[in-house]
């Protein structure tokens, strides 16, 4: 506590005679600080205007939109299939889950049943994406707080899975592997054996990350009791995912409104108690174990079968057939050039992505393009609670809060 001592000696005031103080009165005023838009720990381009009292945040106003590309407007100008690559660019760190959420929403609009094997594949890949997302989150959050080593370890393991994605669909980040009615292609035996090898390799690595952080005094000091939000407030702000579960609210759409192959798998949803950054960290670490469990069960239960629904007016025919069969070629051509017509109506479909509830609200008037498509982006809604969560904490804790939301500005600004 050397710092404290120094301060008391310099500004020593006799409590009996405060007027005897010889030093000039300290000038105090609130300071306005612009954090961002170019700041390494804002996870993209985000500006926060902070009113400070010393180093404490009194009020903060997020300024967003630097990455706004008008995705919702673009959706109104393309067919339903054409929007899938746009969803990759929402949360560009975890494209698979965006594809998944969007395809599910369109399937709900069309009332389309996806084959069993495709459901299992979707769940497997979604959980692989969750692992990638959490690894990316952990590395970024640890780096923001100053733990550099974890960053390299996480990226080492993330790289294995990105290479796996590369082999699966030819892309590492902007994957577009999900299709309306199924998935683009099946897993090859090589992919399955690689995934199984990873599942054996990975759980000890999670323990390793935890050893790095949970025995680290700096990490504990900077996460425990930081950015606390109560359960009522978290629900009231519309938070979701680990950010909500950290406050002790057991809300997970995989359990509440089971979809895909999740109801056939046994897994638990970790829930925190204190609502602080540490609990949200702990939840994500536990979710890594759960994801491994889910993938293992899916690989065991999965049976042979088609990976795409057979609805010629909506789904693509297998590629081999397109080159040999006239009808399939016409079907492919019509779907690519005109798309399909969706029945008039409106639906909302939420999916539990690793950041929170990623939802699509689609209004159709019976045409080949969505009349209105609204994206419920968890990052955007989490930013709404930023001011509430940052009040009273230090400037450096603001970085922790960006990290604890797992914010990605591509999704936030759309």
């Amino acid at each position: 506590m050397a710092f404290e001592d120094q301060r008391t000696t310099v500004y020593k005031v006799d409590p009996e005679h405060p007027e005897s103080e010889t030093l000039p009165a300290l000038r105090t005023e609130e300071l306005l600080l612009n954090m961002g838009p170019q700041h390494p720990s804002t996870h993209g381009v985000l500006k926060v205007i902070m009113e400070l009292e010393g180093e404490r945040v009194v009020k903060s106003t997020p300024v967003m939109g630097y990455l706004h590309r008008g995705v919702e407007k673009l959706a109104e100008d393309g067919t339903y299939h054409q929007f899938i690559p746009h969803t990759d660019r929402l949360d560009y760190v975890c494209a698979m889950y965006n594809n998944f959420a969007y395809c599910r929403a369109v399937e709900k609009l069309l009332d389309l049943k996806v084959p069993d094997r495709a459901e299992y594949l979707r769940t497997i890949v979604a959980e692989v994406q969750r692992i990638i997302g959490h690894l990316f989150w952990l590395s970024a959050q640890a780096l923001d707080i100053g733990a550099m080593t974890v960053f390299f370890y996480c990226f080492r393991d993330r790289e294995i899975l990105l290479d796996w994605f590369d082999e699966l669909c030819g892309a590492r980040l902007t994957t577009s592997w999900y299709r309306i009615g199924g998935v683009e292609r099946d897993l090859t035996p090589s992919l399955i054996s690689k995934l199984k090898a990873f599942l054996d390799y990975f759980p000890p690595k999670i323990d390793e990350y935890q050893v790095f952080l949970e025995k680290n005094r700096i990490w504990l000091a900077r996460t425990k009791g930081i950015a606390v939000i109560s359960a009522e407030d978290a629900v009231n702000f519309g938070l979701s995912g680990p950010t909500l579960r950290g406050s002790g609210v057991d809300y997970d759409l995989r359990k509440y409104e089971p979809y895909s192959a999740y109801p056939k798998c046994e897994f638990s949803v970790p829930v925190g108690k204190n609502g602080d950054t540490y609990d949200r960290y702990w939840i994500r670490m536990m979710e890594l174990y759960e994801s491994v469990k889910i993938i293992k069960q899916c690989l065991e239960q999965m049976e042979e079968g088609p990976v795409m629904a057979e609805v010629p007016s909506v789904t693509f025919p297998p590629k081999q057939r397109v080159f040999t069969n006239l009808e399939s070629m016409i079907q492919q051509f019509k779907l690519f050039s005109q798309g399909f017509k969706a029945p008039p109506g409106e639906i909302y479909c939420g999916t539990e992505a690793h950041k929170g509830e990623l939802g699509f609200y689609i209004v159709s008037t019976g045409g080949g393009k969505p009349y209105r498509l609204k994206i419920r982006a968890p990052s955007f809604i989490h930013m709404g609670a930023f001011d509430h969560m940052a009040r009273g904490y230090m400037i450096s804790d603001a970085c922790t809060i960006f990290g604890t939301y797992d914010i990605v500005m591509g999704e936030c600004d759309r």
Partner: protein
Amino acid sequence: MHQLAKRIQESFTSGFVSASEWRGDVAVTVTRDKVHDIAEFLRDDPGMAFDYIVHVSSVDWPDDEERFEVVWEFYSIRKRHRLRLKTRVPESDCVVDSLTDLWKGADFMEREVYDMMGIRFRNHPDLRRILLPDDFAEGYPLRKDFPLRGKGWRDTFEFLDEQP
């Protein structure tokens, strides 16, 4: 009619307009002046208990008399049910009550609706543009009469490497 919609109709005979259920989604359309009262009822009534706001959205129907439709989606974590609340707003008087006093999360969501569709929310604490710049002068991009490529503001930008 779904029982949630029926409860709303019974409690608010004057504000209730219509209800629909499609693909498992329950949607209730109400009149504009009753939105805040009904939302408060949805949140506080023990049978409803909608504690969670999912999203606020808007749809433009240029051919209709009341042009805009504002959409709220609520979820009840305690009761595990979902409801969509809708109301119509005419273009000449583009205002609807804000729900920020009931759900704090509505703050940013309503700002986004204002930014994109130009619907103002009465009693909103800080109704400014959120994604577009404050000096964006072209109007509201998600309206159907807004061209996909914008109205030409972008062409007036000067870029450093641009050759004259």
